[in-house]
């Protein structure tokens, strides 16, 4: 049976009308909003309960007493030593009830559990660490671009992997103006000083119900300095863990052709390399980013 064209249009109109009525507008991500969601997820930070968290190390397991919903794995690791805490990138949390999961080091601990540090030198779960690092590089790029640009911009984070050779961030609101080499050099200078500031990645794991109510598009809310973003996985501990970092170039992308895709490459501070090797990596990333669609 053929549906008349007019009828089809009417149906489409009706379906969009329903959809718009049900859709919650995306949240305006600000530092105040981050605090608000944290309050919603973890409750009042002035009322604290104590929980015992066991830090698992190669030598022995050390139980530490911490504040529930306030203390993070980073605080627990500091009980071992500062070097141990500083080297942590991710953490494997094994709660007393429920299954184990991997989380960011700066995510508050919600219950009695065992925690195991994962660093750049850990042989297991390296893929997770690599993914988290790449994700974090995109987020940091977005954070300092937002601070550097005087226009109001929004960001998209295309899924990328280390094997691509570069990470990228889609900048919406630049009206198709790509960055010139001079602008890129200024952005790189600003970005490097921003990274050197040792800004922590504050993380909230947002439950689905709160995410839907608040219009958060993702399961993690990340704050770097004053900039807040949503993402879908764990991130590294601090910008200090980022070593060599370079924004390579920008190009137009998106259906409208007005979004600007910014590509870059980076390696962790814990994996130093020579200038020659870095120049090869940067050149390769630049070529691959230029060729990508």
């Amino acid at each position, binding site marked *: 049976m053929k549906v008349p064209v007019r009828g089809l249009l009417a149906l489409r109109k009706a379906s969009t009308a329903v959809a718009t009525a049900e859709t919650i507008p995306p949240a305006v991500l600000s530092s105040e909003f981050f605090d608000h969601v944290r309050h919603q997820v973890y409750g009042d930070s002035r009322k604290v309960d104590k929980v015992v968290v066991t830090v698992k190390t190669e030598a022995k397991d050390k139980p530490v007493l911490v504040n529930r919903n306030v203390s993070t794995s980073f605080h627990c690791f500091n009980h071992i030593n500062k070097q141990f805490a500083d080297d942590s990138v991710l953490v494997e949390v094994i709660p007393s009830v429920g299954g184990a999961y991997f989380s960011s080091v700066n995510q508050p601990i919600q219950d009695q559990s065992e925690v195991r540090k994962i660093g*750049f*030198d850990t*042989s297991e779960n*390296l*893929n997770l660490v*690599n993914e988290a*690092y*790449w994700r974090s590089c995109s987020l940091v790029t977005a954070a300092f671009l937002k601070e550097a640009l005087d226009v109001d911009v929004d960001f998209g984070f295309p899924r990328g992997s*280390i*094997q691509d*050779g570069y990470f990228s961030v889609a900048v919406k609101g630049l009206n198709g103006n790509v960055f010139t080499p001079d602008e890129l050099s200024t952005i790189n200078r600003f970005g490097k000083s921003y990274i050197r500031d040792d800004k922590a990645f504050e993380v909230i794991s947002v439950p689905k119900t709160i995410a839907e109510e608040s219009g958060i598009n993702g399961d993690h809310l990340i704050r770097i300095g004053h900039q807040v973003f949503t993402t879908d996985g764990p991130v590294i501990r601090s910008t200090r863990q980022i070593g060599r970092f370079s924004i390579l170039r920008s190009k137009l992308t998106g259906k409208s052709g007005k979004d600007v895709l910014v590509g870059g*490459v980076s*390696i*962790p501070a814990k*994996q130093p*390399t020579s200038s020659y*090797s870095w120049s*090869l*990596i940067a*050149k*390769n*990333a630049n*070529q*691959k980013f230029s060729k990508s669609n």
Partner: protein
Amino acid sequence: MSAHRVAASLPRIGVTIGHVPQKLKTGGIEPSRRARLEVLRRIVTRTVREERVELKWNRAVEARPYVERLIQLGVERGPLDEYTAEMMEWWLLEKDLITKMHEVIVPRFQNNASPFTSLFRLPPQRLQQFIQNKREVWKRYDIGVLEIHGNPFPPVQEESSEQSDSILDILLADALRNHQMDLQERLNSEKSK
């Protein structure tokens, strides 16, 4: 001492013997031909006692063949040999170390080939030599670490860990592969011209 006769019947030691005699002068030992041997036997004694010692580089280089030869004598000849006993007696100033040598160190190398020692070079250190009329005199020293294999300390050189999945390795491997391909393409295009 019948060193020539004995050395000929022993296998060659597995370490380099420096051909430039090193100056090993030390305060407290009157300079003479004998003084050099006195310094060396103190170092050998200390090495057998501690199994890993930090020394000035030239002393470590000089003392290493003597430690090697002493262990080799123990391994090849055993404690009942007259010449070995004489050597142990002379080179090890503290007599309990002779027992240690035969009961702890030598059994460790019964089935091992030479070298029995390792020598590592540490970064140079600037150390104070003396103070003369309120004037501090500092000197830069090259430092060596001489150790007997199988000692209970952690390794001097960190074992290279498997990092083939690290971010740096992935990026660098990809970059080198593409760099190689670029070079090959350029070479082919030049050949075709």
